[in-house]
């Protein structure tokens, strides 16, 4: 088992994610520069949060053109679990590895706070060890997490079991106040049709040990480690 955390100019959650995987979970993990042409030999690829290329043009747009993204696409095609966190999610959208796009939060504020998300499917490598409907408490920190897609795409996400997490309150209820950014259908995270490419706005690496105020993020790592080991 070996994990890759991709580093773009402007990534700023790369070392946090490396820490969560390598130190907290004990997984051999490499920080991999965006110019790297191949991801052969990695069992898990994580695109971390941050502000790659200063969010120039559109969030994730420049990083989506990086050389390493061809390798990410190849890894995804091989079935390797790929996780995009926050800016990593935005990059996966811009790269076309996940459907839809991001807009600025409807409140037009940068939201930096703890939120609750409900597990909507267990079929992804990152949710198989969680329970259906389980509510996870994780932090967000973004200005553009307002997920949008045309109605047909949103319907298809539901029909194909591609909505992975939705924003809810602590009891798992979808309420207006629980959605921090205006995302359509309260979507906090989605996956591709195959289920191995997953993107979400909350930061599991920031809640993987008690010292950080929460450990629900560990469930994503435990899930994917169990999947890779299986």
């Amino acid at each position: 088992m070996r994990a890759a955390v991709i580093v773009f100019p402007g990534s700023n959650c790369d070392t946090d994610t490396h820490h969560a995987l390598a130190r907290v979970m004990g997984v051999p993990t490499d920080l991999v520069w965006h110019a790297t042409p191949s991801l052969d030999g990695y069992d898990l690829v994580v695109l971390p949060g941050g502000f790659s290329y200063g969010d120039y043009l559109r969030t994730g747009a420049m990083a989506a053109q990086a050389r390493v993204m061809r390798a990410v696409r190849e890894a995804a095609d091989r079935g390797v679990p790929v996780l995009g966190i926050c800016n990593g999610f935005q990059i996966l959208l811009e790269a076309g590895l996940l459907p839809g796009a991001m807009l600025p939060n409807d409140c037009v504020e940068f939201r930096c706070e703890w939120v609750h998300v409900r597990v909507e499917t267990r079929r992804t490598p990152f949710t198989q060890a969680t329970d259906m409907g389980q509510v996870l408490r994780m932090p967000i920190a973004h200005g553009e997490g307002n997920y949008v897609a045309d109605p047909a795409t949103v319907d298809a996400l539901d029909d194909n079991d591609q909505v992975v997490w939705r924003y809810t309150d602590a009891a798992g209820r979808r309420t207006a106040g629980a959605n921090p950014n205006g995302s359509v259908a309260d979507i906090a995270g989605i996956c591709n049709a195959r289920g191995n490419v997953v993107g979400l706005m909350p930061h599991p690496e920031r809640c993987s040990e008690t010292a950080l105020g929460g450990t629900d993020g560990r469930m994503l790592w435990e899930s994917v480690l169990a999947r890779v080991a299986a």
Partner: protein
Amino acid sequence: MSGLPQIYTAHVFVRLKSGVNDPQGATVADGLRDLGFDGIRDVRVGKIVDVELVAPDAATARERVQAMCEQLLTNPVIEDFELELIEPQPLKLSDTAW
């Protein structure tokens, strides 16, 4: 000058698709109202990308910028664009960009 490459400037106007929520535009509209401007119905914020390029003719220049718009400059999920190509200026020997 036929056959010689020329410098073209393309103005790409990028707008959010109609129907796509524009939180920035809504906030700017509120700001204008706060300043006392009456009658504001809607504000949409877009962007302009100016591309200067060397191409053999206008059709090729337009084709290349169109491809740039589709591959990077705009996101077709949320944005529309219009492309305006400016008449070229003859390339001088001092122009070494190409």
